[in-house]
């Protein structure tokens, strides 16, 4: 029986008169690779913000790695996010005045203790050991996203969350990043990715489609991956 790493029960999020998420029920097992797809305004980002402890639901519960995060204080959410979530952004969000290596070490610094050797290993895993001393401005978009992935993985999170991780990449770099996800999935890392790109969505083990804040489709794509 696979271990449940995330469980959303009757989760809704309401902003004034707008219901961004409506009665969402979702369960993710450890080691799963889930794509969240849907048109703009369907509630994808709201959902990933709630899973990523950057927002709380208006109603319902969210159990992350055994902890109910739906009613936690901002301080506790910060701590949980630091310990359990690895974030990947569409715009990479690297700190411009720090090198690739230092950008990875920043995540270690906020989590526990910086370790340069370990940060170098993380960069090596995404094929950027040679570029460790470069500033973000000296890296290509694909390289920046790989630094972002190394940073997200450095603290061994329970879940790797990506919000349009390939949205700013060309085809070649998209393929490199997807290959990294594929390898991470094979290593047992739980991955949840929001994407507009059907090609990226289709390589996940499982895909859900959101429309008007509701899950309209929940597709198991395991056979596709095998092929």
């Amino acid at each position, binding site marked *: 029986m696979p271990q449940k790493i995330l469980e959303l029960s009757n989760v809704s999020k309401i902003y004034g008169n707008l219901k961004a998420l409506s009665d969402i029920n979702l369960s993710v097992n450890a080691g799963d690779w889930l794509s969240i797809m849907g048109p703009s305004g369907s509630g994808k980002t709201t959902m990933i913000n709630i899973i990523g402890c*950057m927002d709380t639901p208006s109603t319902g519960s969210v159990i992350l790695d055994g902890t109910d995060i739906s009613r936690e204080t901002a301080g506790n959410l910060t701590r949980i996010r630091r310990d359990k979530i690895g974030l990947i952004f569409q715009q990479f969000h690297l700190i411009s*005045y720090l*090198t690739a290596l230092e950008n990875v070490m920043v995540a270690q610094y*906020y989590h526990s203790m*910086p*370790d340069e050797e370990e940060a170098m290993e*993380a960069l090596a895993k995404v094929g950027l050991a040679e570029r460790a001393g470069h500033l973000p401005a000296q890296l290509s978009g694909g390289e920046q996203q790989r630094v972002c992935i190394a940073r997200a993985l450095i603290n061994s999170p329970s879940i790797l969350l990506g919000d349009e991780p390939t949205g700013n990449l060309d085809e070649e770099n998209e393929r490199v990043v997807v290959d990294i996800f594929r390898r991470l999935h094979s290593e047992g890392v739980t991955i949840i990715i929001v994407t507009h790109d059907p090609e990226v969505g289709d390589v996940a083990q499982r895909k859900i489609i959101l429309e008007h804040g509701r899950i309209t489709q929940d597709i198991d794509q395991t056979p596709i991956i095998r092929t």
Partner: protein
Amino acid sequence: MASRTRKGSRLRMYFRMLSGSLIRRASRLVIAVLAIAIGATILSGLVTIYYDIPEQLGREFRSYGANLIVLPRGEAKITRETLRALRELVGEGRIVGLAPYRYQTVKINEQPYIIAGTDLEEARNNSPFWYIEGSWGDSQDTSQVLVGHEIAGTLGLKLGDTFTVQGVKYGESAEASRQDLSAEENQKRDLARQNFHTKLTVRGIVSTGGAEEGFIFADIDMLDDLIGDTFRADVIECSIAANAAELSELSAEIERIIPELQPRAVRRLTQSQDIVLGKLQALVLLVTVVVLIITMISVYTTMTAMVAERRREIALKKALGAENKLVMSELLGEGVMLGFTGGALGVFLGFEFALRVSLNVFGRGINFQWALIPATIAVFIIITVAASIIPVRRVMDIHPAIVLKGE
């Protein structure tokens, strides 16, 4: 990932991030450093002037004559030993001039005049405002004297002229001219043992616009020899680098330690000096406070802009799990470094500023106050941190989910 070792320290990483931000974002921080450096320059410059003004102005005021008159108590006169004791008590460092005066009535062309015997060099130190036609006497040739402008006019004396003075020696009494003797015989009697006479040369003519124009100023030792007495001064005029309070304290000390003397401060000078000093120092203090406030506003504005500009970075750090206080400590750390750099730069520029002001206003150099280095740096670190607190607290209002999505 493998278990994390403690190879790197959090503190080292903190400074790595801090130095990265300061060095690699230097162009963006130049304005902030400049604002602090300008404030620190003006502050350290003004403080240097503030501490130097009493000395500088004190010296200026010393140009207006003695500020302490010391008289003998009772009928006794002031001996050389007492003069030496007074000099030691005041201290050489504070003495601008210390001139003993002995007044002696003499006759010139059978008319009475007063010779003031003094130490001409000390008198010159005391009264640099005297206008001297010719020059101050020559210590090698004590027969050369200064003649008051009034006397020179009355006797028709010019520079280089010689005139004869005569009188009764110390302790002797004058005898009236006898009716039964001729004028020549009476003159011979005047030149007898109990009288003195000598020829003096006009080396300079003194114009002060005051009582000094009615005196002849000669070397006090020459006068003592002439009248056949040892050193006995009627008064000592002192020009001392001190304010009214210090002078009053010194007077009390003189009275206590040398009871045969009674010192009197020249209130007109000492009070004027204190009033001018007080006003100038108040002005400097006011300007300093204004500069500090302006610097704080400038730093506040710069830090507000910096926090706004770095919202995404701050949001990212929070998204990575940084607590508000940790992010704020990083920004305040940058503030401390900015304050340090600007303060250090300002100390040296401030000295240059104070030096130029002093040279232009007082015509003198200025002493560098070493204590200003740590003091200015500390003040500007405190100012920068204080001015940064409100902008930096805005970190708490930054929500990573909103900012990182581009709002």
